[in-house]
């Protein structure tokens, strides 16, 4: 696919490649500098694999000082920089460009300190999301945001994208679970934003940095909140004849004052795909499935589930299946969290990430079906029902350029629909390059200009991850 344009590589940068690599070699150990074409190719894309660009060089610093030196050097020589965590971005947030130096944080993957009395952990940016939870789970704690890629994705990438996950209905998204970061500004200056104490005065730069997609600086360390794990957690499967019924049940549960820790929705195609992969015991004779998870002691979960089951029955639930063991629980979540991977086994797909007001659910699902059929394609829907964050997976054949173009168009139509009904283009994956050129559907010119002016307060020269988030034309530098 070539539909999404990249900025023209800067000829002056390409021409100075040898000089630049020589300079970088003075700033980091040889083992941290990747220059050969074969090795650079490993960094040419992320999980948005339809687009690839081999970078000028890749640097894998080991310390904040090295990040600072490299960034300062690139800034001095006006070389674009693309920050990278694990490269799991679904929107192309980490895809490089030919004239860019990739700064990868994979070598900075240590957990620096865990502090249970204050319920915080200090970690390096390249640590994986799941590694934080694994480091504290034996002591009854966890790190809350849980994107499906949590085994691989890094906390630095999570902060860059303000990642969510299945459990953010109760625990919030990344921005709600971070207390501080060490941020290297574009000129190499190192600043501490936030810290171990809550609600630092001054502008909420921490909130601004979360979800800024590597456009404001490169973060090297973070102080995250860790939370006490519930006494127990139990997912229950609710199968419905129609997605309308499932949507109404979700609304009624919330209206009854119950906020389950997670409410996940799958439609029939998604159920089939995930069940075939995970053997999770999903009911196969329903059109819509909700995975609802509750927490607490056994008695509390029984009581909450009794209320939820009663509500579900009022809305015509056909199948109710409770997890009876830790193994069943794991299988239920494995099925859901591997939805993208399992889909990838049967077809190529692009994954949408729009959010809608949940009241619009039945209408939007119907329209998605129509849109995808219009392009002669198929779709599987998985999404976070409690918060309206949709993940339609549009299936297509990557080797058929015509079909690939149709899939992209269908995706764009779906995202425009999300904006039309009062939602947004992306709930947790980010804008990246994928949704960059749709930003004008969400924001008026003064709004986009305002965002770019704030961006320019950090990086007036558009050095940091410059191909992303904002349409390539009409950019504002100050």
């Amino acid at each position, binding site marked *: 696919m070539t539909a999404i344009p990249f900025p023209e590589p800067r000829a002056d940068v390409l021409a100075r490649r040898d000089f630049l690599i020589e300079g970088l070699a003075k700033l980091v150990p040889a083992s941290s500098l990747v220059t050969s074409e074969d090795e650079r190719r490993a960094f040419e894309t992320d999980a948005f694999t339809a687009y690839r660009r081999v970078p000028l060089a890749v640097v894998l610093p080991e310390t904040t000082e090295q990040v600072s030196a490299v960034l300062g050097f690139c800034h001095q020589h006006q070389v674009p920089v693309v920050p990278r965590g694990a490269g799991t971005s679904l929107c192309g947030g980490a895809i490089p460009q030919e004239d860019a130096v990739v700064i990868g944080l994979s070598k900075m993957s240590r957990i620096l300190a865990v502090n249970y009395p*204050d319920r915080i952990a200090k970690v390096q940016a390249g640590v994986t999301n799941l590694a934080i939870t694994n480091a504290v789970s034996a002591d009854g704690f966890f790190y809350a945001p849980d994107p499906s890629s949590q085994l691989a994705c890094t906390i630095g990438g999570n902060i860059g994208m303000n990642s969510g996950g299945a459990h953010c209905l109760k625990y919030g998204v990344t921005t709600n679970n971070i207390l501080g970061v060490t941020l290297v500004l574009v000129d190499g200056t190192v600043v501490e934003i936030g810290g171990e104490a*809550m609600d630092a005065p001054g502008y909420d730069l921490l909130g601004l940095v979360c979800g800024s997609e590597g456009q404001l600086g490169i973060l090297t360390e973070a102080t995250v909140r860790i939370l006490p794990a519930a006494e127990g957690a139990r997912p229950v499967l609710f199968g419905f004849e129609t997605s309308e019924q499932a949507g109404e049940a979700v609304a009624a549960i919330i209206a009854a004052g119950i906020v389950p820790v997670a409410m996940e929705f799958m439609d029939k195609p998604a159920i089939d795909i995930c069940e075939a992969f995970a053997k999770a015991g999903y009911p196969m004779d329903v059109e819509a499935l909700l995975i609802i998870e509750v927490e607490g002691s056994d008695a509390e979960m029984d009581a909450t589930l009794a209320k939820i089951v009663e509500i579900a029955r009022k809305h015509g639930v056909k199948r109710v299946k409770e997890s009876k063991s830790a193994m069943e629980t794991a299988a239920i979540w494995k099925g859901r969290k591997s939805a993208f991977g399992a889909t990838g086994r049967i077809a190529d797909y692009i994954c949408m990430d729009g959010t809608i*007001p949940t009241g619009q659910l039945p209408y939007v699902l119907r329209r998605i079906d129509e849109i995808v059929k219009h392009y002669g394609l198929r779709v599987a829907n998985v999404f976070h029902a409690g918060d309206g964050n949709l993940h339609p997976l549009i299936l297509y054949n990557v080797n058929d350029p015509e079909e690939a173009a149709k899939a992209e168009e269908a995706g764009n139509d779906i995202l425009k629909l999300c904006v039309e009904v009062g939602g947004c283009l992306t709930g947790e994956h980010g804008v990246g390059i994928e949704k960059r050129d749709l930003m004008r559907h969400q924001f008026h010119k003064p709004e986009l200009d305002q965002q770019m002016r704030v961006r320019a307060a950090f990086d007036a020269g558009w050095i940091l991850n410059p191909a992303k988030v904002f349409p390539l034309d009409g950019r504002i530098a100050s």
Partner: protein
Amino acid sequence: MLTPHTEEAAATMVRDLLMWKVPFALRGNGTRQGLGRPAQAGETLSLEKLAGVTLHEPAEMVISALAGTPLCVVEETLATKGQMLPFEPMDHRAIYGTEGEPTIGGVVAANVSGPRRVVVGACRDHLIGVRFINGRGEIIRSGGRVMKNVTGLDLVKLQAGAHGTLGVLTEVTFKVLPRPEATATMLFEGLSEADAVAAMSAALGSPFEITGAAHLPAGMGGEKARTVLRFENFVASIDYRFPALAEKLKRFGRPTRVDGAESEQLWLAIRDCTLLAEPRETALWRLSIKPSDAPGLVAALRKALAEARFYLDWGGGLIWLATPATGDAGAGAIRSAVGGRGHATLVRAPDAIRATVPVFQPEPAPVVALSGRIKASLDPDRLINPGRMHAEI
């Protein structure tokens, strides 16, 4: 004073002020005028007439209101559907002796939260959308009405706690939560500060979903020191969790249970700082630190400021401190005791002191420079609430 009735009228007024380069202060109902530095402005734009709840979708747990909407109207609207603002915003009238109804825009501008903040997050964590007028007179939306939204830069967070220096807020949208069925307080008496913080940390680190943890030293509304832990949940859950937590905390003694109105009154007093509101002449500070630093910090402050009175909220992460409003109101001693571990905000002091003592913790030079550039990006002529946060912003 300018009092627009619509957002469009407010934008027109801002453009007029812009044309004549008139700096202007923002105002809701004036109940928090004492917070921050006195703004250096010749005109005032009041949002009090820009009022009303514009959206409430109980099943989506979302509410929107115009900036001048009285907070009580927002809370009453939510209560009719059994919901609430999760962050429990403090009412500043007790400490400032002001009248009128606090506005929801003021809550956002000052990022006002209460005791529940320690667990569920601050005002900024629940704010999902804003509309504001920037210093170019343009109406800008950021965020929206859905709780998961990473589309573009998060200017929503930037507005929370900016004290109106980055634009004129016209509408705000929050995600909300169901009101708990019941609330109860676990009370320990006579604990030292070190034990109190240890007990609060153990409680907040337990699976029992404590939603408030405060320590009131002896003489702070009671004869003995009181350490209080709040449960908010279904009745059956509280009845199960109370003894379970008491067992876990038994090394701190046998707690008593406080229910109903008495429990609610206690948490209102903690939220609104009524315990330190009098005498009105004292200065008030808010110190934000990590809880385990609290006992040592309190001991150091006792030594440095003999007349200081204090209590702890947020499990020890927040110290409310009253000092005599003389000299620098204790700023030097307090900020040197806090060091780089947190920050101290001067919440109440006479104008003369607030004009000379930095109200907010001074920030490092690169952050100050960055903040200046952000201010310029939103308000290039520096007309909106100039000087309210820092002399230079």
